[in-house]
């Protein structure tokens, strides 16, 4: 299995098939005398921005914390909760209420539902 080809940027779906986001980051854990292991995958706009430029990531993080749901939308999923890697990355959790859905839920409650016929 390859990190870029098979994990990074792949679609993450939860136990019920809800789309959580893309794998925006992969956390490797360095160990003494043993090969680095995947500790977690990370979802969130800040992780994407960090790949462009660290300063963009810092700015985005501050902005996201200052607006809307006051969350930067970063969700770290421990590798133990990753159930399958295929077309999608399946994880053993429920998307609702996680930071990855914070903006989705905030926009839904504060904007979309206030418009007529959103349900």
């Amino acid at each position, binding site marked *: 299995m390859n990190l870029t080809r098979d994990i990074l940027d792949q679609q993450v779906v939860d136990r019920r098939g809800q*789309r959580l*986001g*893309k794998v925006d980051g992969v956390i490797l854990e360095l160990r003494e005398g043993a090969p680095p292991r995947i500790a977690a995958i990370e979802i969130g706009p800040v992780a994407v921005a960090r790949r*462009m430029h660290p300063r963009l990531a810092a700015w985005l993080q501050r902005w996201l914390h200052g607006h809307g749901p006051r969350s930067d939308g970063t969700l770290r999923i421990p590798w133990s909760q990753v159930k399958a890697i295929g077309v999608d990355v399946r994880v053993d959790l429920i998307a609702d209420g996680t930071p990855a859905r914070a903006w*989705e839920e905030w926009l839904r409650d504060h904007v979309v*539902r206030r418009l007529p016929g959103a349900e």
Partner: protein
Amino acid sequence: MKKYLQVTLGIFTSIGGFLEVGAIATTAQAGAQFGFRLAWVLLLGTICVIFLVEMSGRLSAVSKHTLQDAMRERFGAGFFLLSTIPGMVVDWLVLASEIGGVALALQLVTGVGYQWWAFPVAIAAWLLMWKGNLGLVENGTALLGLVALAFVVAAVRLHPPLHDLAAGLVPSLPRSDGAGYWFLAVSILGALISPYLFFFYSSGAIEDQWDENHIGSNRFTAIVGMSFGAVLAFGVLTAAAMVFYPRGIQVDRYEQVALMLTEALGRPGLYLFAGALGITCFGAALEVALGRAYVLAQGFGWNYTLNSPPANSARFSLVYTGMIGSAAVLMALGIDPLTLTVFSMALTAVTLPLVTLPFILLMNDRAYMGEYRNGWIGNVAVVGISLLASLIALVAIPLQLLGG
């Protein structure tokens, strides 16, 4: 057999994405200024679109990834953002042009200025996406879009000299006004090969849950759907070449374009022109707005679907809402729709390589396509199209300054 009925996705994609404000404007200008001599560009563009549409459908059916999904996953977040941000700006201008097209159609019929129609049109399109579903959007537009056949009827009634039309299918160098000739050629290609068309079509294939069994019907849909659009576009070119070219009329305003249908069809011609312009542009507006919403939702992995209420995919719904709302503002300000159309078609041409080049790699990717990878015909086509697109991108802006 039922799968072949999915040709409505193709017809809709074609009505909205192939024949829309850009294609009507640029082919009418081409016919008015150069007679049948630019017909070959239309043919070339159609072939390119058929190949690329077939590939985007095949990619989705086999890999279960949409084009934009695959672009993000295969080439990373950097490339995705690099291609998405310029694409979004261009599409926003295209969307404003499409709203302008519908608004102008309403102006032609009512006499009330197009600026006043921008918001009603935007709200109608928004409501259809907000309350409707993909099937309604597809089938409704495909059915109503048949009114665009009026272009073909008009073209036939004007008795075009077929040998001139056939001669125009062979590429030729312009006798005069080279810059204007090539600028129109580039704009026509920009209008026909619209990136949002592929994004939309490949998302439609996922929403309609295509799989390997749809490869045959996908090919059929691509060829039939796009050829249908091409026949309509040839109708526009022919009518313009018959009515405007001999009289030395250049097309600067949409009001002029209507005259080619009233010439051929009399009084109903005006209403048929308004209907065809209005419906194709309305379809295109839906396609552009949805196409971009799909790109962002899939690129960032959000929930997206048109087949359940907007509350289930808030970010997706807000992207198309924001796009269509802000684009309507541009039109309400009273920017000339035809000028904006021609400008945004040339800009589309500049961004083409960002969409065509990835096809080369994606359609040869073993992991995505398995045994359904491109054969040598497909590869020659996609490499050729990409070279053409790169050339177009390089010359579009200089040509715009020189000939636009």
